[in-house]
């Protein structure tokens, strides 16, 4: 696994990040950093820009201003002679392979089997042998509790099972950073616990850095080192989960938490 930088360098760093869709400014002057192995949960009302942050890290959205650094290297743009210059696609791809993402809607490839979904990128992006990638895929399927589903097609699986495959697919790339975008929001309530337990297990057994957007507050409390509360495109409060959940200092955080926890 490529870990070329020393542990003091943040794994993810946002510097004066701005993101707007047309006239709609979603993020403004956002600064924060995530240390290696840190698990950070982003909370806040919908439309506050949490998912946009994950999508910016995954380069699924175009950054409109500022800089994002991964392992100290610029992800999309660097400053050169006082100007913002786009990095080459090769440089970007090198960093992007260290980042994995699990989506709300799973986004498995329906035309491939479960196994093919998992081994595609390890073979063709990381250059692993088919045997190596397949062995790893089987052990990951074991880990997510689906050892006998390798040859099935995703659409023959339940939502919860599909999401577990998607987690295995992301982990097969050995990411340094794992982005979890509302991974349980599309699931039936009774399977949410299974998926979260698998992620708890990943958090406990690996040193992967996680950036999490979720409405599952107990999960956020269990796995994260830090919680950041967003509102209107800004971080209005951040701290340890115990602090944020039991004694939020900002009024917006109090309102948000009572609304979310109220029906939990």
């Amino acid at each position, binding site marked *: 696994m490529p870990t070329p930088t020393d542990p003091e360098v943040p794994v993810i760093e946002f510097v004066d990040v701005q993101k707007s869709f047309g006239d709609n400014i979603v993020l403004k002057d956002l600064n924060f950093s995530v240390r290696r192995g840190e698990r950070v949960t982003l909370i806040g009302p919908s439309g506050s820009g949490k998912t946009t942050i994950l999508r910016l890290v*995954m*380069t*699924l959205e175009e950054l409109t201003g500022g800089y994002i650094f991964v392992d100290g290297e610029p992800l999309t743009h660097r400053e050169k002679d006082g100007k913002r210059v786009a990095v080459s696609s090769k440089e970007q*791809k090198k960093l*992007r*392979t260290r*980042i*994995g*993402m699990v*989506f709300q*809607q799973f*986004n*498995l*490839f*329906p*035309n*491939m089997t479960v196994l093919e979904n998992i081994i*595609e*990128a390890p073979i*063709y*992006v990381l250059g692993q042998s088919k045997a190596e990638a397949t062995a790893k895929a089987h052990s990951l399927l074991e880990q997510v509790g689906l050892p006998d589903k390798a040859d099935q*097609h995703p*659409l*023959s699986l339940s939502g919860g099972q599909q999401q577990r495959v998607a987690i295995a*697919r*992301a982990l097969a*790339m050995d990411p340094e950073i794992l982005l979890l975008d509302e991974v349980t929001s599309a699931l039936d309530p009774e399977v949410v616990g299974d998926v979260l337990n698998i992620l708890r297990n990943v958090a406990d057994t690996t040193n992967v850095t996680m950036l999490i957007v979720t409405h599952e507050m107990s999960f956020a409390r269990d796995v994260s080192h830090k919680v950041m509360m967003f509102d209107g495109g800004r971080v209005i409060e951040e701290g340890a989960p115990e602090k944020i959940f039991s004694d939020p200092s900002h009024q917006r955080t109090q309102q948000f938490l009572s609304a979310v926890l109220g029906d939990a």
Partner: protein
Amino acid sequence: MIPVMPFTADPAPATGSTGNVWNWDFAIEIFPAILRAFIEVTLLVTVVGTVIAALLGLVIAILLRVLPRPLAFVLRWAANFIRMTPLVVQLLVLYYGFTWMDPLTIGFIVFGIHYATYMSEVYRAGIDSVPKGQWEATKALSMSAGRTWRRVVIPQALRSTIPSLGNYAISMFKDTPFLFVISVAEMVRVAQTIGAQTFRYTEAITIAGLIFLAASYPTALLINRLEKRLAYAN
């Protein structure tokens, strides 16, 4: 080039009264010549034309997505131009413009390119129907553009396009009589020649029509079955 063969059989004797419009003996006699023209020209042009159209149409659809804007614009208008002008005109332009070229080859090229512009629209709709989340997943896995197209986008796009592509293949098949304008001896022209030489058009033209039907209908059924087989297993 396959020349129009003069049909040498004797004119069918006018048996009995003038009310006899269908002569079975004559029909059986001329059937092999018409069938031969069907296989050697009509079917050949349809198959070769469909292969060219299906491949070229896919290439056009992909290029329209990946080319820089000015180039994509030029390609889009070139495709529109071909689609919006009649097939017959295109056949004639190549026939008189490239006199050294074998008319049958002109047939392959014109049918292939003309229908490629239609099929590219079908592929475009198929590509557009691939959900955004699929593209995002390929990016999240850092898949190359080539693998993304080959393993994810094209296979998923094709499923919804098979019926329309098949219908265009059948349309092309039914357009093959236009080959007569460049003097290719396709089936209908052979049938008409037989009629002209024997003064019995009914049998010849009817046989040609029935052969068309006998080929189109099973093809349509086949496309239907293929479409069902390609649907995702549930």
